[in-house]
């Protein structure tokens, strides 16, 4: 017996037929490779409480940067308005102006869905119990299977405010569940904090809505910082302690802060031209 050309031709037709890659894993990887920018969410409502940002949005054409660095995909919002991105699994991220998010396109949506955030964003996470959605910041990590929430990272601080479902906030072996209308805070070296947040005021940079119901003025000032980076100090370091009530929808953040000050009988003075530094002065309300 001897092999002739015909025998060999038949044999070699099976060359590498044993190579059988995982199709579904490959498909998830493909989804990760396809540019995730699906649309710019039009924020036609009065969503920019911060007037300067709105002005920039009018002057500067929408500009977004989508950078691929190796397999690391970086989503950057350099526009003057919130900008929406759809990730490969269908999760939507609305990035605040100046914020960045990143993920590894080769690994995203395989075992987990891991995203890094620098700045502030609103997430609508596509439910998937098998592939948890994770956002890491230093030692802190947010774990989600499907929900909607606002997340802010600043240095070693990670703050989440949940509008739908629930998330788990973890830091150095400690973990807390944060449910809808609640807020959680992780800060390096400090215990995790957890509080009710019925008015979702951390969403205001996107929704344009602020609601106060006997809210301490220190907390009100905190919302302006967290949403728009506004620093508001007290003249002579003399802080007042009184409660604020009222609803605000749209408009300029500085003007809203001025209204709040006037209602308390205080004066608001801009201390810089960037619209982000103010000083409160006057007699404290009774």
């Amino acid at each position, binding site marked *: 017996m001897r092999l002739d050309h015909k025998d060999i031709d038949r044999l*070699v*037709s099976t060359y*590498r037929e044993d*190579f059988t890659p995982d199709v579904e894993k*490959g498909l998830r990887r*493909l989804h990760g*490779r396809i540019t995730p920018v699906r649309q710019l969410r039009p924020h036609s409502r009065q969503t920019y409480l911060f007037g300067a940002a709105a002005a920039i949005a009018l002057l500067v054409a929408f500009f977004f940067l989508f950078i691929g660095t190796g397999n690391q995909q970086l989503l950057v919002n350099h526009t003057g308005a919130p900008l929406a991105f759809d990730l490969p699994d269908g999760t939507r991220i609305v990035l605040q102006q100046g914020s960045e998010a990143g993920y590894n396109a080769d690994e995203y949506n395989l075992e987990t869905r891991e995203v890094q955030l620098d700045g502030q964003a609103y997430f609508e996470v596509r439910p998937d119990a098998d592939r948890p959605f994770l956002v890491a910041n230093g030692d802190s990590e947010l774990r989600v299977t499907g929900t909607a929430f606002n997340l802010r990272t600043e240095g070693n601080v990670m703050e989440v405010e949940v509008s739908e479902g629930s998330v788990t906030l973890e830091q150095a072996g400690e973990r807390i569940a944060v449910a809808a209308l609640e807020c959680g805070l992780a800060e390096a070296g400090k215990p995790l904090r957890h509080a009710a947040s019925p008015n979702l005021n951390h969403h205001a940079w996107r929704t344009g809505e602020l609601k106060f119901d006997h809210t301490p003025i220190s907390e009100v000032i905190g919302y302006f910082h967290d949403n728009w980076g506004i620093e508001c100090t007290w003249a002579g370091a003399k802080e007042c302690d009184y409660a604020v009530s009222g609803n605000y929808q749209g408009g300029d953040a500085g003007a809203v802060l001025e209204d709040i000050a006037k209602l308390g009988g205080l004066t608001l003075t801009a201390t810089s031209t960037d619209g982000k530094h103010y000083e409160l002065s006057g007699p404290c309300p009774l």
Partner: protein
Amino acid sequence: MPALPTATDTALFAALRTGESAALDELFRRHYVELCRVAIRLVTDGAAAEDIVQEMFTSLWTKRDKLPEETPAVSAYLRRSVRNRSLNFLRDRKRIPVDNGDIPENSTDTQYQPAAALEQEELQVRINRAIDRLPERCRLVFVMSKVEDMAHREIAEELGISVKTVENQMTRAYKFLREWLAPAILLIFAYFG
């Protein structure tokens, strides 16, 4: 368009041109494994083969508006695309040899004896190993001809060699493979008749 599982490849391709991402997924599911095999036969590395096919599908999506309007033979179109990308991969890494290379002297696989009972799986391993042991230019010529059904002239153009060289390489390949596969001849006839 008909429901995706029953749609023809041509209908899926047309839907892909209009931006229907589900059509891309269905084409991927239907052809991924076979296209990866096309790539690995040329580049011999599984991870690189998957990368090549991933890039081809990514390109299909990102350049969908430039796809041909009528594509009756989608499978052939995809195979050709992966084959071209695989050859570019080899060229970029200077893995297409400029010389003929030497046939291994001890061409008999000492792991197997003629009388040894080989399972079909082992036979597949032996076939893979036999082709992989060919000098690279010889291997590429043989695979392009006998597995990818390319004409000798086409192979010559792709590899930048003469048709005569292609024919010589084919002769070398057959000689080597006949010797290498001889120990498994009984099993081969049992499985392949």
